[in-house]
């Protein structure tokens, strides 16, 4: 037991207690949390900061607005409706096609306008939000996953989670939806985490339920072949999220859209630790490197991304 403990220390693995006491409560000001806990606020903030994100089509805040839903959806072939304060990917409705009054979900199932209206009403009632608080429904553009990922994900769009410490991306992992995870990119629901090399964007290792895995259980693709295109742009976008939020210890979730390139999906002020298992790398060495002031100060997001690519990746 004690040897396991000191081995983890040696590997620089960050534990939950240390994450909470040392990083989240020290670098993330409480008053900033609402900025990331509410996806609508994050989106508006991203617009101001020129951080690319899926286009906001509209919002629905009051129950009576659901009657006008038909007008709002007029002319939209594909779109996403999601709760602003939802957690773990709950309440997200993805429509990929439409024929008059019939809408086709990403799973292929068809839903009527009436059903969409009820879904929106449930969102507003707080069915999917934390502690059941009343919520706002967000209507936004559908993301078209980059073709590079076709063989790696089942149903859902894969996203890339970056841990960003004081503006420096320090660790990255791609999250792939599986049948087990019900198309959601949430690790504890059974999504696969593929650790990525900070220098190249190539896969290091992969885990499902905290255990190493080699092949995607649904598509059979060899996970170590995964390689992220436009890697440097992605790092830069992740680094920009710090300037936007001022959260010192941040999880940035970024997707790669086939047409628009890297887009910010959402932010997390309490990012999980499984990313260390996926990338076979402890967070602490890189975090302390920055904390002890060894990384340069006053860099732009681009310079920080560069630094992560060249210097942090080898720590």
């Amino acid at each position, binding site marked *: 037991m004690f040897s396991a403990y000191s081995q983890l220390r040696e590997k620089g*693995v960050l534990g939950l207690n240390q994450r909470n*006491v040392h990083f989240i409560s020290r670098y993330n000001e409480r008053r900033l949390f609402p900025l990331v806990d509410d996806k609508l606020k994050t989106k508006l903030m991203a617009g101001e900061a020129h951080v690319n994100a899926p286009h906001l089509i509209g919002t629905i805040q009051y129950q009576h607005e659901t009657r006008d839903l038909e007008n709002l959806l007029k002319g939209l072939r594909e779109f996403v409706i999601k709760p602003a304060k939802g957690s*773990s990917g709950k309440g997200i409705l993805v429509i990929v096609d439409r024929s008059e009054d019939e809408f086709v979900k990403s799973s292929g199932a068809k839903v009527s306008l009436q059903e969409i209206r009820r879904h929106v009403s449930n969102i507003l009632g707080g069915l999917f939000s934390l502690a059941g608080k009343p919520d706002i429904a967000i209507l936004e553009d559908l993301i078209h996953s980059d073709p590079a990922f076709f063989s790696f994900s089942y149903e859902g769009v894969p996203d890339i989670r970056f841990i960003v410490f004081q503006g420096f991306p320090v660790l990255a992992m791609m999250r792939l939806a599986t049948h087990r995870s019900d198309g959601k990119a949430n690790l504890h629901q059974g999504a696969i985490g593929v650790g990525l090399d900070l220098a190249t964007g190539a896969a290091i290792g992969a885990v499902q339920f905290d255990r190493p895995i080699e092949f995607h259980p649904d598509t059979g693709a060899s996970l170590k072949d995964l390689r992220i295109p436009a890697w440097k742009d992605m790092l830069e976008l992740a680094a920009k999220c710090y300037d936007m939020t001022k959260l010192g210890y941040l999880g940035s979730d970024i997707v790669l859209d086939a047409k628009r390139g890297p887009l910010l999906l959402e932010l997390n002020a309490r990012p999980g630790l499984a990313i260390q298992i996926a990338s076979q790398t402890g967070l602490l060495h890189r975090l302390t490197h920055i904390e002890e002031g060894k990384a340069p100060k006053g860099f732009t997001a681009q310079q920080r991304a560069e630094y992560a690519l060249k210097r942090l990746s080898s720590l």
Partner: protein
Amino acid sequence: MSSSRLVFLLIVLSLFIGGMAQILHRHFTLGVPLIPSEQRQVWFIDANIDFDAIKGSVVASLALPETQTGYTLLREDLISPGFGVSVISTQNHRRAEWTIAEARGPQKLYYKIQVAADNHIVSPPAPPPPQDAANPPLFIDDALQQAIDQIVLEATKKSAGPLSFTRQIIKFLTRDSPEQNVELLRASFDSGDLLITFLTQGNIISRRVYGLELEDGRRRQRLKDYVEVYADEKWYFFDPRTGEEGKPENLLLWGQGATSILDVTGGRNSKLTFSILRQEQNALRSVLTQLDDLGQDRFSIYRLPLEDQALLKGMFLIPIGAIVIVFLRVIVGIRTSGTFMPVLLAVAFIQTELAPGLISFVLIVGTGLFVRSYLSRINLLLVPRISATIIVVIGLTILFTLLSQQMGFENIQNFAFFPLIIMSWTIERMSILWEEEGPKEVLIQSLGSLAAASLAYTLMATPIVRHLSFNFLGFQPILLSFILLMGQYTGYRLTELRRFRFLTGDK
């Protein structure tokens, strides 16, 4: 180390030391036992005064014992049919006085006390002797006086101070084959009087004290007299019959500072006898009674009405549950449903006992979950949904209570001890967890919660823990200091050693 960290450690340390000091103070100076089952000896002593009243008014006056090193007076009662009673404090001792205007024939008066042995309360240092405390001289004829002078002279030569002088005198007086003069003195006077006469001749301050040998089950015991010699600002104790020094442990001094023990005016043939009984008593109860009598324990919860005591006792146990939760979550890393739900569950277990409590809780929550799964299908808003769950829980509580009564179980009120709101929220949380994370997570968290509750209950039901938290307020700051310390623990949780095992190459 940063200064804020230093301040933090100082706060933790002072909480710990403060709590410890309070516990030690209560234990060592007030005598509150650290272990609940600790026993202490309590002596029940009855002093019986018998005398024949000559026709007319009677005053009987008895010197009384005081709390002294090794013995503490717990309570005293004066019993005396028809007599007026009062306790009078004189300059250096207390006396009980019985008075009656008209009495005739044999009379009986009682003075009963309870004295605790093995006590920590130390008697105050004896006051220096009053200047006029001269011992009454004995009537001694010239020939004997000459013999006395000679012995005093010889003892003075052989001694270096009051104590060695006393030892020499006692040696003369207790010799097996004494000189003729000494033999005569011994025959005419009692040994205590005689010793004091010699000591007075040698200009040594001394006084007579009386003591009662405590022996279980003795009756018709009498006081014995002893002599105390004043030297180096202290009184030294001597047994004039044997020359033994120092007060024997089983001796209770009686009427220290009094020249006479029993005075009866208007009576004759007065007699003072004692009967003695020993009992083992719960130390806690007798100490508390004593502290209460002395008015020394103003902050004891035992001074409150019983109902309030029960409330406070329940409250005092909650920090124990809290520290268990902190430990399990921060050090071990167990997941529970609702942070402090297990503590409230443990409090309920105290009423129901562990096994019946666990069974009842699982029954109600399990059935509740079943009903709740229907509620979630009809899409209710949160508050109405929980309200509905509360009513369902009430219904289930009544149902199970009636069922268990039908089946002849004894503890049928078990189901009613669980806080309704806690049960409803537990059902709500479990049900959401089931939908979001699946049954496995529900199982993990419910097992975690039940294990935490059982552990908290086990600690909260341990007699020594209960005893410490009820009787020593200092226990709480000590718990707080540990909780604060654990609050800054940034090491790995035990469960993380397993979670991250694939990172260390340890497959």
